């Protein structure tokens, strides 16, 4: 048993999974609160990557250290993507609230198509090279390359953010308001919660997380492209469903599970079928256990 290889695969899977989890949280939170699959969420992730790329490109020539650039890029990406998410909700989803399931879904698909082409036209259709490499974390050298620096940074950052999010959801007033609105909007409104603001907040938090994911992945793979949102979005959605759509711990768990599954499949079996795996998992879960690992089965009242 080649332990070195195993651990590499393991950490690679956890890293991937963390990114999926960050994106999946956005899907699950929005679905939990307005029962909409935000097709355009993957595009927010992509916008995060691109914005970070732009910032890094500008700052790179100014002589800042790599760490500083990355932190600033992340901040800027998060702020801008939060704005995108907020605007998106106001334009494409809010007017359709309360209508049939189909209209918001179509609107979301339209938004996704629009954003992809927007970036493609404004920037370029090609893949661009992300200019800044993740700074080396020296003490990792001891582990002999099992855990790379960028894996480490991603794992630590994601874990930290997810802990913060959990604390926020569980213990703060806004977090409780979000949970309440997700469970029963009318009741929450009767109790004085401004549902519109809470829904906007949900989009804001989700977009911020996706933007962070985008920045991290751009640094990790050293590449950005207008199309990265679609596949990552689909996989992250699979992760959200896997963990139980609407459940925040579920999204985190689902992300990690999917990441590990992909990594181990690629590492020990065929490499080609990596993408298919995610979709096959998606289809299987929805057929056999739509409520996911941590979700509760919904009983419909007749």
């Amino acid at each position, binding site marked *: 048993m080649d332990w070195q290889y195993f651990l590499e695969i393991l950490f690679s899977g956890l890293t991937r999974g963390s990114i999926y989890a960050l994106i999946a949280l956005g899907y699950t939170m929005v679905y939990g609160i307005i029962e909409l699959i935000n097709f355009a969420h993957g595009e927010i992730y992509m916008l995060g990557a691109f914005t970070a790329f732009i910032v890094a490109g500008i700052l790179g020539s100014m002589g800042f250290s790599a760490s500083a650039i990355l932190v600033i890029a992340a901040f800027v990406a998060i702020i801008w993507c939060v704005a995108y998410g907020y605007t998106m909700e106001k334009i494409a989803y809010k007017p359709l609230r309360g209508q049939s399931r189909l209209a918001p879904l179509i609107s979301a698909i339209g938004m996704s198509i629009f954003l992809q*082409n927007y970036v493609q036209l404004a920037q370029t259709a090609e893949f661009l090279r992300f200019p800044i490499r993740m700074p080396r974390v020296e003490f990792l050298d001891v582990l002999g390359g099992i855990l790379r620096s960028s894996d480490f940074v991603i794992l630590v950052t994601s874990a930290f953010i997810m802990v913060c999010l959990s604390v926020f959801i569980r213990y703060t007033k806004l977090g409780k308001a979000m949970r309440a609105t997700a469970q029963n909007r009318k009741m929450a409104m009767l109790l004085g919660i401004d549902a519109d603001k809470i829904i906007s907040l949900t989009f804001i938090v989700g977009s911020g997380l996706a933007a962070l994911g985008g920045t991290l992945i751009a640094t990790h793979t050293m590449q950005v492209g207008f199309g990265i949102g679609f596949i990552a979005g689909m996989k992250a959605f699979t992760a959200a469903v896997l963990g139980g759509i609407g459940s925040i711990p579920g999204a985190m768990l689902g992300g990690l599970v999917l990441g590990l599954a992909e990594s181990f499949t690629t590492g020990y079996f065929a490499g080609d079928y990596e993408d298919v795996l995610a979709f096959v998992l998606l289809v299987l879960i929805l057929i056999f256990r739509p409520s996911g690992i941590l979700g509760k089965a919904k009983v419909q009242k007749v």
Partner: protein
Amino acid sequence: MFTPKRLIRSALISIWFMILVFPIVGIRIIKRAPEFFYDRVLVIGAITFVLAVLWSWYFEVYKDRDLSKGISSQVSRKFSALSEKITNDKNTALKLILVLFIVFMILPVFTSMYQTTVYSLAFLYVMLALGLNIVVGIAGQLVLGYAAFYAVGAYTYALLNQYLGLGFWTCLPIAGFITVIAGLLLAFPVLRLRGDYLAIVTLGFGEIVRLLLINWANFTGGNRGIANIPRPGLFGLELSPEASTIYIYYLCLFAAIITIIIVARLINSRVGLALQALREDEIASEAMGIDLRKIKLSAFALGSCWAGFAGVLFAARNSYINPTSFTFMDSAMILSMVVLGGMGSIVGVALAALVLTLLPEYLRAFSEYRMLIFGLLMVTMMVFRPQGIIPPAKRKYYPTALQNEENS
């Protein structure tokens, strides 16, 4: 209209958008140094300013009433009245159909070869959109991976031809059959699913089919696709490239016409009624004696078989297919034709299919912005007119009792 409050608010919105798009639109780093494009950002600012003014004026004038009562609604009401007249008044309908028929029949004489193939494709999309209309528009089952069935049809012909040497006319019914099997394969596991979950599974299914086509390269040719797919012969005669292009054109035209007739008949029948009931309320339908499993399977089978036939025609038209013709974008495009055209409406959906296929060809100047406009169109339509352009035609029936009353 130009109150200070409105102007200030619009200016603020415009500034918001300018800041929002600045990183992506205003800065490009293709080579080493960043280039700045302030003019682009200002253009966006100007556009959003104008739109914001119009938007807030629109809402001011129609304040307190919901979106359905504004100008767009008046326009759409007039439009609905017109389209109702077309679809329900037999004389108008017949005249219009005759005109269209004649136009399409003589089209190849007046246009270039290239244009003819464009129209062939448009007719194929009419078939596809109407097929999807059965599943999504009538039966209310949201399917996001429809292009997969299109692919199954096309690849069945291509592969049967490549490995077994079978010809077009032999493959046509076989491909239809196999596509229906694929439709049932998808339908069986999803019988219990509703709404969003159903949509996502069909999306997954569509992607799995596409990825299998790419990865199973030994069998399907992978990304390289399959070339040299033969065109159909005319009673055994081989045709020249021009002649066979025209031949394909007429085949596609007639296929579209047959599709329209059959779909219309299906809708106006016991089956169609049951499909509609399924869309409206599953539980009530079941309580009224409709076998949900059977009707859902029927919907998927009916929907998928058109895609199969269209796929065969597509493969013949192009003589070459590869997985890039059958992506999620294509599924989304067909779905938009159904939704934008008016769910359940044959005229609306066919019209949307024609417009969405032909318009990009005629607006070549904007072809870069094609998909961008398309995405924006989807969002806009959903916000302003979610029911689509043309509402479904009314069912034609009349109680005998009333007929007798009128006659007596």
